[in-house]
């Protein structure tokens, strides 16, 4: 069996071997629905779509995904099992990718469990299911981006709490980069190309664009590069901090 899939299986199983996973999934589902119905007025809008539901995903992920990512490497370093893992015949890249994919699959499972809301809108009305599918894909990609950042941060510390806080701060910055308010300020101070650059870095810009129903290659490349970059960073950080 491929080492990546062996690590993937072990990691994913380890999520479900503690109650934390189930607590996480429940919180995720409760918040996802609460945001959509209470704040987003999913029903009151009188439209059969899941816009309000997906609009809150970035903010939901801001706190929940770093909570998944924080244990990726920090725990491994704290218990010393990193020494075991990295002296098995696997490359560091395989270990980084295997662990990342397991975390991603875990968030994916939580996301998939929101399917009742999809069924509900289909029952109540006639939504554009194509848009909903791309929105789910966009949401998953965004979660992957958050996770990859969290993975790199987690590799830099033994403390899961510190990993969590730093990841939230970085992700918050990347979310805000696309916010109209921030872009408005930026426009006053910065040249247009820089403003566009800032906007292009934002998760929200790309997520919104995908969740409109069109999967643009640029958005895919954005998330792909982002994930690739931060996984590479994870590997570099592990090398640098392995000794302590």
């Amino acid at each position, binding site marked *: *069996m491929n080492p990546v899939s062996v690590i993937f299986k072990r990691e994913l199983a380890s999520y479900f071997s503690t109650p934390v996973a189930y607590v996480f999934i429940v919180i995720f589902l409760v918040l996802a629905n609460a945001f959509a119905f209470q704040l987003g007025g999913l029903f009151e809008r009188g439209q059969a779509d899941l816009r309000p539901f997906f609009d809150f995903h970035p903010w939901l992920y801001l706190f929940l995904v770093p909570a998944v990512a924080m244990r990726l490497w920090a725990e491994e370093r704290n218990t*010393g*099992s990193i020494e075991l893992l990295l002296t098995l*015949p696997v490359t560091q890249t395989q270990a980084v990718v295997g662990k990342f994919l397991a975390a991603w699959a875990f968030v994916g499972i939580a996301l998939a469990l929101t399917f009742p809301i999809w069924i509900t809108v289909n029952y109540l009305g006639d939504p554009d299911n194509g848009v909903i599918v791309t929105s789910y894909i966009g949401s998953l990609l965004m979660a992957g981006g958050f996770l990859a950042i969290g993975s790199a941060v987690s590799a830099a510390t033994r403390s899961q709490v510190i990993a969590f806080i730093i990841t939230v701060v970085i992700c918050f910055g990347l979310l805000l980069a696309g916010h109209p308010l921030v872009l408005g300020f930026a426009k006053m101070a910065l040249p247009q190309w820089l403003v566009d650059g800032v906007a292009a870095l934002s998760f929200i810009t790309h997520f919104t664009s995908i969740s409109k129903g069109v999967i643009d290659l640029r958005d895919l490349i954005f998330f792909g590069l982002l994930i690739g970059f931060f996984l590479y960073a994870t590997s570099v950080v592990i090398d640098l901090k392995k000794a302590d």
Partner: protein
Amino acid sequence: MIEIKNLTKRYGDLLAVDSVSFTVGAGEVLGFLGPNGAGKSTTMKMIAGFLTPSNGSISVCGFDVEAQSLEAKRCIGYLPEGAPAYGEMTPAGFLRFIADIRGIAPGAREQRIRDVVMRLGLERVFEQPIETLSKGFKRRVGLAQAILHDPKVLVLDEPTDGLDPNQKHEVRTLIQGLAKDKIVIVSTHILEEVHAVCTRAIIIANGRIVADATPDELEARSRYHHAVTLRGDDLEGLKLALAGVAGVGEVAIDSEDKVVTAFPRKGQSIFAAVTRLIQDRKLAVSEVLLERGRLDEVFRTITQTGARS
């Protein structure tokens, strides 16, 4: 075969391992000794491919640990210090994970696991989460993991730490029983262990090798080597009598153990003379012991003066 050349590791300003070179051949069981902080674990971490050396090279089974790290790691079984494992897993799940990642064929897997579980007496805790196991059982799981793929080279960092006397004995038997074409490197603070299992001992202090010899040779360096120890009631009387024997240098009383020891002058053998003395003078002696040499004393002398061998 393990070849280590000028191996050096720096942690910032601290020189943890300082230009260490040695070669270990098949069939050798190398004991790694040294005071706390000497650099034993650091050296082992580099051999196992976890830490990158600051300088120097390591080759294991003909593979350079840095350039051909996967091949090298395949032929090593490694027990890190403290035997870390994934606490939420059971030994069953953990060993299956190790078997899969080490590429043990699915058909042979369960048999292989049953073998090591039996050898290390893990049957009773096979389905219990590792984090709830006692220290000794955790260590055994770590050992099971290290020998699972029947590696050519075993690197064990304090394998008997925390084990009960029965298990210590088991582990020593296990190491002795490994096929004769294997290489074992064990670090330990238990000096009797060196005699029990090692064919060779390296003592390091402050990151440098200060002695590299067989356990017998090390013992021969002890001032107790070939000394004679007597147990009796009248220690002062025995001391006086011993001092008159030809070849005896110093005579020392150990009032704690209630024994008196006669040290031979360099190169002299005094055992026969002392036994004759006892018989001739009908000395009241309850025990006579010919000392082989005391490793702990050699260890202290060597590591404290830091003298090179």
